[in-house]
């Protein structure tokens, strides 16, 4: 029995989804019961898994071919256990919050069905042991994101946002699939179990990669021997390895919304706020980072690939932070903030520090979910008002929501002793070891983060109420504020509860197994770098924002640069003109070719030629007997002539 318990982590949400699909979506109370029940059950099972009372479950063989073995099994190592707790815990809290938030929505049965299938797919990503299985669940979260972002499908903007999210994901999944296929091609396996990856790394690591292996043969023995590449005589040269790494990273670009496919995440705020909290802050967008950490030994095989990863992460972080400075929708600001923090995590992975990335992912899940749920509570209180310039003075009116929001904001900015301080500064110090450039940009982004979050809080929660509606908000009921309180508590103690040594322990064990040594000298960052400088920068940011927005009625920052920021660097417009426009042009020309040349000329043309020949041959059938006899005799004479005389 022990060996099957862990499968219930997947079976429960799946059962809830199927039940809701088959009819319970019309009976909301049943749907809510199924969905929330399954999420609570999953959290409890995750706790037992984390405690080590439940072993890895029995695996089921799916594809068993000579060159490819794919099975349904789970990995339960520290990385997946930690992520599992985050996913199921935050998921459970969001489920409970949604009970209150979606109370008046007629489609809440459908909503909980979408949440359930999301939980199923996300848990599957966390637990899957090979890239094929992961890819299936990857698509599953993309699909459920589509369902939930486009939940209010009557709204044109929501439907289009759902499409945009799905298309961006799909585009990135093409690169992801290329990476997976190249991985299989070069290494002969798709499994991402730690020992298999260690063996793969041992097989393909070259001396210049900076690893010194004395257990090379032992590790190499656990690697699959016959891959297609070795059979074809193709060696894993640096170019192919770089392409593989970038391919796998493409999956992360789509799912975690890196530049240039970041455009879908802000628009995905069209979905209900619990969706934004769960999917687009805490879990789904973190799946990309989780996947990178999972295949980390593979990423080590290509230094160029790692540089690409770090650069894109860095660029996304600073670009998103700049855009957030000029946004006016509370959820948009939080969305760009998510983008920025994801950039941090990806940059950390690119700087050979996956434990920092996972630490920041966990703390980010806490306070970002808190911020989104609190924003949802604010929106609920003000009857669906999202523009911060129409709020004001909420801290006095709805104190519980306000205080939790404030805690979340401080955690996000990196103010001690909240969780964000520990994770962000640890991350930045490890990035300094890789390159001071990344560190500098990271610190600047921290300044901007503090700036725009303080701006948000000052405008929305302090000062006088700016509109009539803002004067009479009502506090949310207990089942909506309880998750806020729980998450606020986690944001406070997140730095202390042992996440950092937990993930550090996992990461060092991976590194020691494969005997990896970074290709650059790692110096110890000074205390000044690690703690003092970022804190000063954060306080500077808070101070600037307070000074600028303290009593402002409108945004004092005007001008060219800020308008560019407010228009999100015109990315959407560029994409619309060039990408969508070009694609439409190509599609239209192909449609023309299809209807005129293929359909008209070739198919109908061939048909008309046949009919024409038939009409021509018809002229021979005159019905005149003597004409037939004439032709018959003529033919006979010609035959005789040629037989006799040639």
């Amino acid at each position, binding site marked *: 029995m022990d060996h099957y318990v862990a499968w219930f982590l997947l079976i429960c949400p799946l059962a809830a989804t199927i039940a809701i699909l088959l009819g319970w979506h019309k009976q909301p109370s049943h749907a809510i019961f199924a969905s929330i029940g399954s999420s609570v059950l999953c959290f409890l099972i995750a706790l037992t898994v984390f405690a080590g009372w439940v072993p890895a479950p029995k695996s089921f063989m799916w594809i068993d071919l000579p060159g490819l073995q794919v099975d349904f099994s789970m990995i339960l190592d520290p990385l997946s256990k930690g992520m599992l707790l985050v996913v199921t815990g935050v998921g459970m809290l969001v489920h409970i919050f949604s009970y209150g938030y979606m109370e008046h929505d007629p489609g809440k049965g459908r909503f909980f069905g979408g949440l359930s299938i999301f939980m199923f797919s996300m848990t599957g990503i966390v637990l899957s042991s090979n890239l094929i299985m992961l890819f299936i669940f990857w698509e599953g979260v993309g699909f459920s994101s589509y369902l939930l972002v486009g939940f209010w499908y009557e709204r044109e903007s929501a439907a289009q946002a759902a499409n945009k999210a799905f298309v961006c994901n799909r585009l990135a999944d093409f690169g992801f699939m290329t990476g997976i296929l190249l991985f299989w091609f070069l290494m002969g396996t798709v499994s991402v179990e730690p020992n298999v990856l260690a063996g793969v790394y041992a097989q393909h690591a070259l001396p210049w990669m900076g690893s010194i292996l004395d257990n090379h043969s032992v590790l190499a023995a656990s690697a699959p021997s016959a891959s297609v590449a070795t059979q074809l005589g193709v060696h894993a040269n640096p170019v192919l390895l770089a392409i593989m790494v970038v391919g796998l990273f493409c999956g992360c670009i789509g799912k975690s919304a890196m530049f240039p496919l970041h455009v879908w995440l802000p628009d995905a705020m069209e979905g209900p706020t619990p969706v934004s909290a769960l999917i687009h802050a805490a879990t789904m967008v973190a799946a990309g980072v989780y996947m990178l950490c999972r295949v980390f030994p593979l990423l080590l095989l290509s230094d160029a690939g790692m540089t690409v990863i770090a650069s894109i992460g860095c660029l996304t972080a600073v670009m998103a932070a700049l855009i957030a400075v000029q946004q006016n929708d509370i959820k948009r600001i939080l969305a760009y903030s998510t983008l920025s923090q994801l950039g941090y995590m990806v940059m950390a992975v690119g700087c050979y520090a996956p434990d920092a990335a996972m630490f920041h992912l966990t703390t980010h899940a806490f306070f970002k979910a808190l911020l989104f749920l609190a924003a949802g509570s604010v929106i609920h209180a003000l009857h669906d008002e999202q523009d911060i310039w129409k709020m004001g003075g909420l801290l006095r009116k709805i104190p519980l929501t306000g205080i939790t929001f404030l805690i979340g904001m401080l955690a996000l900015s990196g103010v001690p002793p909240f969780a964000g301080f520990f994770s962000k500064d640890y991350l930045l110090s490890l990035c300094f070891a890789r390159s001071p450039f990344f560190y500098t940009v990271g610190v600047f982004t921290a300044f901007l983060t503090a700036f725009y979050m303080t701006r948000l809080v000052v405008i929305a929660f302090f000062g006088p109420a700016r509109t009539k509606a803002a004067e009479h908000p009502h506090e949310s009921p207990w089942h909506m504020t309880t998750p806020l309180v729980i998450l606020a508590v986690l944001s406070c103690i997140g730095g202390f509860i042992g996440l950092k040594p937990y993930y550090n322990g996992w990461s060092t064990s991976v590194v020691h197994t494969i005997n990896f040594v970074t290709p650059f000298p790692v110096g110890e960052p000074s205390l000044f770098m690690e703690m003092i400088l970022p804190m000063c920068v954060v306080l500077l940011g808070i101070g600037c924002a307070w000074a600028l927005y303290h009593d402002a009625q409108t945004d004092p920052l005007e001008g060219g640069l800020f308008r560019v920021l407010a228009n999100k660097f015109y990315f959407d417009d560029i994409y619309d003109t060039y990408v969508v426009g070009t694609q439409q042009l190509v599609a239209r020309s192909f449609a023309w070719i299809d209807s005129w040349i293929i359909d008209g000329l070739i198919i109908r043309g061939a048909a008309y030629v046949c009919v024409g020949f038939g009409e021509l041959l018809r002229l021979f059938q005159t019905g*005149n007997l*003597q004409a037939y006899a*004439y032709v018959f005799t003529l033919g006979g004479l010609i035959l005789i002539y040629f037989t006799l005389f040639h």
Partner: protein
Amino acid sequence: MQITLNDYLFVAGTLFAIGLFGVLMRRNLLIIYMSLEMMLQAANLTFVAFSRFNHHMEGQVFVFFVITVAAAEVAVGLALIVALYRLKQTTTVRDLTKLKF
């Protein structure tokens, strides 16, 4: 002058050609049939000439059979023409265009 085999064959050929001309040109079904009969007789003449000049009797035996079968065939053909006449009230071959597409 000696009458050679070639002369008899040429005469038979001429008869055949005239019969062919008749089949192609005449519009009355009966005259066409008669011309067809003429082509058969030309073949008979060829057979007898060859039989005589090659010194064997099989040619004549064959002509015997050909005449017999030709007679039977003419009888049946004329019965058919009569039946056709009863149906269509015409013996002009140009009016029989059921084979026209």
